[in-house]
């Protein structure tokens, strides 16, 4: 499937900062399940965008700008072709053995309640894959999507206590549970093609867990599905912090507000008209 994405992030400041620096993880890479057709990244300030690769092989862009800055706006736009791999992620950049993804992080450390939940949910299943699917279903069932309930620093344990959250929280909980039952797991940030055409207020997040003999398998606990063709994978890490689309800091100024517009649509109309003209 061809998916077209436009993602605009604007930081506005009530009091303009002197300088700002940002790290962007906004550029997808190829793997067997996706091919990046074209992709561009634009920052509306004069700056040198330095491209590198982070610890996990994600494409990282960094820049620093001098103020006074009333706002910084970053737009990424491009097209990606996806293929249904039944959730299995192969051919991706792997910098570490799976065991690294057994590390707990402050955002994903399982509480006693999470450990119990993970154990009870998976006790009747045999085999890692079916245990992970049981977790996927159970987390999707027991959590309510609520954008007002959590924030970007909410931990898996806090989210589990309230049983509410957004895709980031669903994913952290899944990761905590998976690691809790001995399966290496990691956080994925990316884009999701929904059934409607409406603008989204954020990118999407899901998780991958490592299954012996299969490799990394994707799970989307927010939608309760294994990603097929509707997910575009951008960055992976131990948790949200490592894969966050934008991490920034500024000196001076304040009163920061954030505005995000994400548009994910099938590029079908485009490709159809092309095929008709041939």
């Amino acid at each position, binding site marked *: 499937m061809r998916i077209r994405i436009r993602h605009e992030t604007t930081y506005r400041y009530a009091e303009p900062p002197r300088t700002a620096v940002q790290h962007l993880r906004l550029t997808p890479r190829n793997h067997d399940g996706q091919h990046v057709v074209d992709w561009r990244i634009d920052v509306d300030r004069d700056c040198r965008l330095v491209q590198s690769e982070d610890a996990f092989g994600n494409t990282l862009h*960094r820049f620093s700008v001098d103020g006074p800055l009333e706002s910084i706006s970053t737009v990424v736009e491009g097209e990606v072709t996806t293929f249904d791999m039944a959730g299995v992620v192969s051919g991706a950049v792997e910098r570490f053995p799976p065991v690294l993804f057994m590390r707990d992080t402050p955002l994903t450390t399982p509480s006693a309640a999470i450990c119990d939940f993970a154990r009870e949910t998976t006790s009747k299943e045999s085999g890692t894959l079916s245990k992970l699917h049981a977790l996927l279903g159970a987390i999707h069932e027991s959590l309510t999507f609520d954008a007002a309930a959590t924030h970007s620093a909410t931990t898996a344990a806090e989210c589990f206590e309230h049983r509410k959250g957004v895709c980031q929280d669903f994913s952290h909980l899944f990761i905590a549970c998976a690691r809790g039952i001995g399966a290496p797991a990691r956080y994925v940030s990316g884009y999701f093609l929904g059934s409607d055409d409406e603008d989204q207020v954020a990118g999407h997040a899901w998780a991958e867990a490592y299954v012996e003999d299969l490799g990394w398998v994707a799970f989307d606990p927010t939608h309760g599905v294994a990603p097929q063709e509707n997910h575009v994978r951008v960055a992976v890490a131990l948790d949200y912090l490592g894969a966050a689309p934008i991490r920034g800091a500024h000196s001076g100024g304040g009163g920061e507000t954030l505005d995000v517009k994400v548009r994910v649509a099938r590029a079908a109309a485009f490709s159809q008209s092309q095929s008709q003209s041939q």
Partner: protein
Amino acid sequence: MDSRITQFDELAGADGRTRAPYRKLSQWLAETPPELLASRREQAELLFRRIGITFAVYGAQEATERLIPFDILPRILARSEWATLEKGLIQRVTALNAFLADIYGAGEILRAGIVPADLVYRNPAYCPDMAGRRVPFDIYVHIAGVDIVRTDDQGFFVLEDNARTPSGVSYMLENREVMMRLFPELFALHRVAPIENYPDELLGTLRSVAPPRANGDPTVVLMTPGQYNSAFYEHSFLADKLGVELVEGRDLFVRDDVVYMRTTEGPRRVDVIYRRIDDDFLDPLCFRPDSALGVAGLMGAYQAGNVTLANAVGAGAADDKAMYTYMPDIIKFYLGEAPLLQNVPTFRCREQEALAYVLDHLDELVVKEVNGSGGYGMLVGPHATRAQIEEFRAKLKAHPQNFIAQPTLALSTCPIAMASGVAPRHVDLRPFVLQGANGARVVPGGLTRVAMTEKSLVVNSSQGGGTKDTWVIDDAWSAEEAMGQA
């Protein structure tokens, strides 16, 4: 100290005959009236108060600033003893460094199955951001503090490696200064190896690892988390001795992968940062986003090779107490040599059999948390209450991989001068090993830490331990003895 075990006193020896390095001190003590010792103790206290050497204690009810107890009697090592120790320390730190270069590089020791991969990759101190990166001159551990104990006059044991930001060197230097003022007559009696050159050696080490663009004239700074850090005194003391700027994160900024320091004359480029701040707080864009102590973009500059951090980010992956147990194998693997300094025999509680043994012998063992430091989260079996033992039993059962256990060592003792007279107390030693592009070295001596309470084995300053000056003296007596026999 377990009374069942015979203890080794560094002055009296095993047989009660004064050991050679202590002969002159012992004689001097015998001839010195107790009133003189008492007055020198008071003078020492006054001097330290005037210097203002204090440290903060974490977890204390009120944020207290304390004077570390200082004992006026020197701890003495013979040059020949020191030579063995020095060789062993350099060997150990060389191996620690090779290990770090390997786990952040090719990972050969993991593939060879010498160290379990999960122990490295799941170690919170292992920093994924450092994987596949080179650091200048492949040096990760520029400054190491290796904690050494002895149980007899044969060899030395390593109790712990500190490869992150070991502290205490300011006490080593201050203790010597105070001692030279208090006891000129004792210094006249002995040929004590100097340690005053430590700041020069440290600066030389830091300058040697500067990025090439500094053209041999690098700007070095010392970065502190600030005045609320327990070791702030040391940070300002060292910056002063080194003649470099003491900076906090807010004094630095990064522009296009270059680190600058704000000065009254405008931004000045920084080449080497001796950072006394933990990895987690270095850069809010890479590590803890809530860190107000770090510098946004610092890791980018570091990875671009525009600034050198000492010690390297992620160096803590080598000094973990679980990794400690593999040190003899690590030394053999990289250097092809047998370790010169012994490890204390250690049970890895992650291993089933070891755990079972430890749980059965909690009242005899010292149990340590793998990632704990400074004597926090530690059980000293022979001195623990039943409740403390049970508490640790529960912790061990829940997370065995977080603990190691060691037999209670009969740590050596040294005499200390108290109001009631001279009495032996347990000691350890933290020498400071420097490693730069210009080689590795150790100033002769280190910080001797002493448990001020009778029979106590915990020497950490956070737990009421004190310090002593440490002397490495020429083995002149051997010549004298030889002459006497002739």
